[in-house]
């Protein structure tokens, strides 16, 4: 048990917080800002999934469905109510309400008999909803998704002022126009931070402790007098609502929703990887996992891209399978291996390692 671990963990988390808080100033270009916003959303999404997986010990495959409900709520409200802040609020509220009701129904149905039904039934329901969304194209835009307009105050068209260029010694700053896009980023960042703090608070509450007790030993929790079913359904609903909020933020940022960015099974797998590799049952694990995955997805290809394959010695490059294994398109293979190893050897993931505890 090294003492450096926990300090390092705190430093990493602090660095992530600072980087996200000052992203518009620190990084240039809209791609970087896009990545930062996506990261904020993914952190909330992964952390809300960790409430279920890590704290309550429930596996759900419908988390992206709830995410999508928030996103489509905002999209539909913006399309039908016009371009205003009340559309964003109404859409978020409607998405959250729908997510809560559906989570309640699924929970009542599948957790009642056997907790393992839950994983299978959420998978089935999420697939059915994804199929419906892509087929009811008059309502949802189908596979193409929906694009819509958000309040001008949140778009690049609006200017709030500028930060002039300056140079202090070796540090040079090019100057920055404070656009509505940046305001939008801070809306996403602020809401994400608030949601994350709410979740931290939730797991430290007696309610959160009961969830952990149920995860550890549901029979004893029941014998002590906690109604296991009610707590499990409760956390299912809470985590679904938070996921829908994350979806709403993402929709506000992207000004586009479609099945591939909100509902896809690939996204579900990404969240699972984030939480497990980062560390289940810690919430901070979701932060680390989200940072790792989002950065890798955005920048890995250009980092190792074709260079790596070209730099292979010909003896290896001519082998039948090996070059294909190292292809950056196949990185999910290695993530999968890492995932399985994490479950077996580091159930508390990166965070657990850094804290120097196995559990």
């Amino acid at each position: 048990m090294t003492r450096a671990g926990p300090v390092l963990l705190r430093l990493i988390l602090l660095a992530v917080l600072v980087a996200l808080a000052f992203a518009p100033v620190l990084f240039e270009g809209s791609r970087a800002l896009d990545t930062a916003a996506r990261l904020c959303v993914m952190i909330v999404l992964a952390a809300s999934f960790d409430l279920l997986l890590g704290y309550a010990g429930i596996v759900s495959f419908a988390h992206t469905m709830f995410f999508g409900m928030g996103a489509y709520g905002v999209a539909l409200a913006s399309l039908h109510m016009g371009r205003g802040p009340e559309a964003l609020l109404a859409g978020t509220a409607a998405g959250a309400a729908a997510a809560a009701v559906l989570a309640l129904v699924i929970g009542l149905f599948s957790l009642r008999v056997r907790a393992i039904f839950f994983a299978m039934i959420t998978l089935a329901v999420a697939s059915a909803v994804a199929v419906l969304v892509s087929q009811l194209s008059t309502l949802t835009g189908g596979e193409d998704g929906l694009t819509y307009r958000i309040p001008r105050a949140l778009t690049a068209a609006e200017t709030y002022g500028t930060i002039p260029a300056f140079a202090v010694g070796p540090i040079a700053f090019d100057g920055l126009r404070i656009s509505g896009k940046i305001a939008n980023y801070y809306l996403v960042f602020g809401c994400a931070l608030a949601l994350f703090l709410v979740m931290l608070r939730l797991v430290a509450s007696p309610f959160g402790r009961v969830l952990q007790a149920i995860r550890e030993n549901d029979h004893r929790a029941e014998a002590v007098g906690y109604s296991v079913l009610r707590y499990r359904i409760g956390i299912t609903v809470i985590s679904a609502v938070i996921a829908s909020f994350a979806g709403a933020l993402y929709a506000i940022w992207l000004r586009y929703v479609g099945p591939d960015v909100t509902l896809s099974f690939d996204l579900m797998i990404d969240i699972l990887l984030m939480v497990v590799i980062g560390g289940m049952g810690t919430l901070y694990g979701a932060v680390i996992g989200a940072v790792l995955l989002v950065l890798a997805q955005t920048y890995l290809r250009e980092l190792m891209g074709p260079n790596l394959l070209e730099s292979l010695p010909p003896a290896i490059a001519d082998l039948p399978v090996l070059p294909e294994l190292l292809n950056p398109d196949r990185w999910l293979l290695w993530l999968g291996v890492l995932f399985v190893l994490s479950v077996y050897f580091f159930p508390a993931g990166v965070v657990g390692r850094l804290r120097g505890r196995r559990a």
Partner: protein
Amino acid sequence: MLRTLDLAVRFGGHRAVDGVSCHFRQGEVTAIVGPNGAGKTTLFNLISGQVRASAGRIELLGEDITRLSVAARARRGIGRGFQQTSLFPNLTVRENVRLAVQARQRKGGRMLRRADADRKVLAAADSVLGQVRLAPQQHRLASELSHCNQRKLDIAVLMALEPRVFMFDEPTAGMSADEAPGVLDLIDGLRRDRNRCVLLVEHKLDVIRALADRVVVLQDGRCVADGTPAMVMESAAVQAAYMGQELADG
């Protein structure tokens, strides 16, 4: 206080508990004895609700609880310790006990406060830990405790619930000779509280003589004797059913 009426359960064709009618009174310590497989643990499972009865009734203070869930019975005052230790392994010792205190004191509004900030709950947890002499280990994980200390923690969780009915399933099994008396003292202490009743599965005759006000003998799921320790231990049925077995148990 607690009454069973023709209580029975079948597993496949096997009648593990077969028509047990008993009345457990307030302020009384009842020892339940019988050879292995007699149905003692199953009787506990029926009373606390882990196993549903095939037939018969269970009443607590006159209320029929036969169809209630495990949690609902616990909230009404049925407290259950486990023969196979049953804890929250990756939580700390103190957290294990705190959860039990919290379950008893539960009020809706409290559930969203900070868990570590509720001093009353923590104080109650600490006092129970002191009673079972686990205070020094309170910050370790339950899974890291020795077997004997895990048994004590199991009992501490039960004590922290402050139930009306205490059920101890072989509490001192696997404990060393110098640990067991402390636990038995705790059980003895419960007798002073006239509002409670204690059910105790125990094999050792000296313990039964010292603690029990009453002895119920189970064999093959039936109640074959019921009376004061002195009376029961002399009866022929017990000699036949139980004494030989106890020798075999060592």
